């Protein structure tokens, strides 16, 4: 039997009762308090993913894809149900998290890396590789605020791509920078995704990318699993469904 890397059981995430409040409204608007809107972003999602598999997630805007990804990454708490990662390290591929724009690119590698949960030593050993991959020349020693937006994403991508985890969650970012770097980053992405034993979950609207990369596709609709299976089959039905609506 294959090892399971991610198991999501009956996951519910809602935004109930988490609206912002003020002191005045808590004291003086007691009537309103009962009418707290409940928005169920995820309404009982369950699935399992084997180690080394690549899962794509599709669904229309607001169907709960990003919420699911963030719940798996541990950024959101589940209201009901559970997410079990079976002791794997996980990261949500986020570009440029924790950057301080007044500091140099090199300093930001450490800041961002530590924030993503790596130790100082781990970053040190990968530092050169990151700098080489980002390919910014002298700019790596200049403050990030002097970067063009393309350079910014190159550095950010290099950090997240080279500091790897067992499970990778990717939210819609597959290529950044100029044409040359875009090709390089797309290839790197593929290399990361297809690396031995890595489990990957990708959220995307680009069905062609998903078809190329994924072993399985999960279709989420209104916070529920609508379909799960082979990419060809699920993506075909998904596209038909989306076209019918228009």
């Amino acid at each position, binding site marked *: 039997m294959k090892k399971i890397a991610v198991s999501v059981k009956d996951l519910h995430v809602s*935004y109930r009762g*988490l*609206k*912002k*409040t*003020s*002191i*005045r409204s*808590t004291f003086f608007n007691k009537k309103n308090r009962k009418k707290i809107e409940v928005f169920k972003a995820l309404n009982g999602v369950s699935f399992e993913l084997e180690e080394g598999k690549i899962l794509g997630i599709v669904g229309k805007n607001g169907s709960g894809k990003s919420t699911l990804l*963030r719940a798996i*990454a*541990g*950024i*959101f*708490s589940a209201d009901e149900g559970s997410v079990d990662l079976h002791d794997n390290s996980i*990261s*949500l591929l*986020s570009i440029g*998290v*924790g950057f*301080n*724009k*007044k*500091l140099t690119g090199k*300093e930001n590698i*450490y*800041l961002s890396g*530590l*924030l*993503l*949960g790596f*130790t*100082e030593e781990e970053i040190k050993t990968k530092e050169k590789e990151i700098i080489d991959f980002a390919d910014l020349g002298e700019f790596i020693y200049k*403050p990030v605020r002097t970067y063009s937006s393309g350079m910014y994403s190159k550095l950010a991508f290099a950090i997240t791509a080279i500091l790897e985890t067992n499970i990778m969650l990717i939210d819609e970012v597959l290529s950044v920078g100029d044409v040359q770097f875009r090709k390089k980053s797309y290839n790197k992405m593929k290399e990361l995704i297809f690396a031995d034993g890595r489990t990957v979950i990708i959220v995307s609207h680009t069905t062609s990318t998903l078809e190329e990369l994924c072993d399985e596709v999960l279709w989420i609709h209104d916070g529920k699993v609508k379909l799960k299976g082979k990419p060809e089959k699920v993506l075909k039905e998904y596209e038909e469904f989306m076209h019918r609506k228009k």
Partner: protein
Amino acid sequence: MKNIKLFIKNIKEYSNYAIRSAKAELKSEITDSYLNWLWWIIEPLCFMLIYVLVFGYIFKASEEHFIPFVLIGITVWEFFNRMVTGSIKLVIQNREVVSRVYLPKYVLLIAKSYTYLFKLFISFGILFVIMFLLKVPFTINILYMVPVLTIFYIFSFGVASILMHFGVYVQDLGKLTNIVLKFVFYLSGIFYNINVRLKGKAAFLLLRVNPVAFLMNEFRKVIIYGKLPSFQGLAFWLGIGLVLTYIGISLIHKNENSYAKVI
């Protein structure tokens, strides 16, 4: 117990990040300004001059060693004030980070507190230079400022961690705390000696009810006046500080994963 264990584990795991992040913030604070790091010295010095001028000269304050007296007041107050006001918007200011990676949210507060501690140490450095120049006698009791400072830090951290949690949900918390802080500011004896100006019961009560006033007074006792601190009082506020910290970290542990939904 579970909360304490988790807290210690998280602190260890994220201590590198907290230090790096504090350094980064301090560094970025000075990169764009003309006078650079000199501001860290100029700022407390100017505040001190203003108070000395207004209260020493216009109101004719008669406190012994008035200049170091005021400087301790400002230093202690500024740290507490920064901790409290800084904590409220902390999670929202770090929206970028909070909504994209998981990290124990009090790590943000710890990182922030390091930058405030750094400024506090600079202020104390200035204080010692001024005491030396004014020939205020140094005594061995000055070493007691270490436990006093530790207790002061724990207490401030406790208050700030609780406020940080509520600051996420309650939008106008900042307004309320501003008013309370103003009140505490005047009742802490930053530019006057509570023992001298408020005789009898008022002073007795204030130095027991207001932790900032109490701890400020202890700092002055051990640093300028060469006296022993009140061990009973210190133990009491250490206890309160630890309880507040415990409440703060439990609140954060319980709710932190929902913060990303609100901000």
